[in-house]
């Protein structure tokens, strides 16, 4: 069995996954009114609590640490799919479960007060989930299996 890569699909997947991390990272470089608009637009998708959000040059990005990790992971996922397409095809379900467990543990321990999460733990656990999700999207949009 070999995989045929539809490069147009792969580039499309990568561009789609890159749109959101680029957009949320714009806040330090745009005017203040537009920054408010961007924050308002992402407010329905993320709580944007300042203490739990990344800052660049003292300006808050439009999403929290965990969402930012997810978005950066989504952007990196298509690159992973290039190298591990076979693995993704075989173990997609397991990968999703394995990637979501640390995220839920990090989040859940915070709720029950067992362990307070840090910006790094929120970013990394979000990134893990994001890279798997991005890989699945790229796999779905660009890889076609065909028998030899």
């Amino acid at each position, binding site marked *: 069995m070999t995989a045929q890569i539809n490069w147009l699909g792969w580039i499309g997947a990568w561009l789609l996954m890159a749109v959101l991390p680029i957009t949320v990272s714009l806040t330090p470089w745009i005017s203040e009114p537009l920054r408010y*608009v961007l924050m308002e*637009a992402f407010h*329905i998708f993320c709580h944007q609590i300042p203490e739990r959000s990344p800052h660049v040059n003292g300006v808050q990005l439009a*999403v929290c640490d965990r969402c930012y990790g997810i978005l950066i992971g989504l952007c990196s996922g298509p690159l992973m799919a290039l190298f591990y397409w076979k693995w993704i095809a075989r173990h997609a379900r397991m990968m*999703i479960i394995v990637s979501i467990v640390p995220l839920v543990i990090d*989040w859940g321990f915070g709720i029950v007060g067992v362990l307070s999460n840090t910006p790094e733990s929120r970013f990394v656990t979000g990134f893990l989930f994001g890279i798997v*999700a991005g890989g*699945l999207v790229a796999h779905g949009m660009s890889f076609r299996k065909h028998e030899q």
Partner: protein
Amino acid sequence: MPSKIQSILIGGLLAAVIGVFIAVASEVSGASDPGNSSSALGIVFQLLGCMAAMTSGLIAVWHYTNENELTLTGGQGVGVGVLAGLVYAVGILILSYVLVGIGLLPSPEESFERIRDSGAFDAPGAEQAESITRMMLTWGIPIITTVIGVIMGLIGGAIGAAVFKRGADDEMSE
């Protein structure tokens, strides 16, 4: 292959209701208040807000595979997710307008006034910035919401196709 329209509508609309419910609950409970960031409710909404947008594609794929006892390929899951995400975005915009009407969410004009109160337009020559901001609040937010909804739906669809497998899988089984 059976029609996917019903699943797409169910996934998109259900996710829109979940998303708006979380947004309103977060707003009303004060969980989205920066001063309340350490409350358990705030922490609950922190993850739900991120994940709610993905549920449109997930629900649509789950419903389709469950109803028809078949497995979707990753590509088909992405397609279903895109359309469910579009329905989600339209649904959430309509519901938001309704909630703005009954005063549960701030209107674009109230948002504009909040920006003005922050002093963002105090610089000289800010008239142009004012008009651009007003236009962005009216048209930019719905466009950005639609783009985010479609991308998140697409991701949910890809995840759903990987997780919910019923019956034969033409492309991915080995």
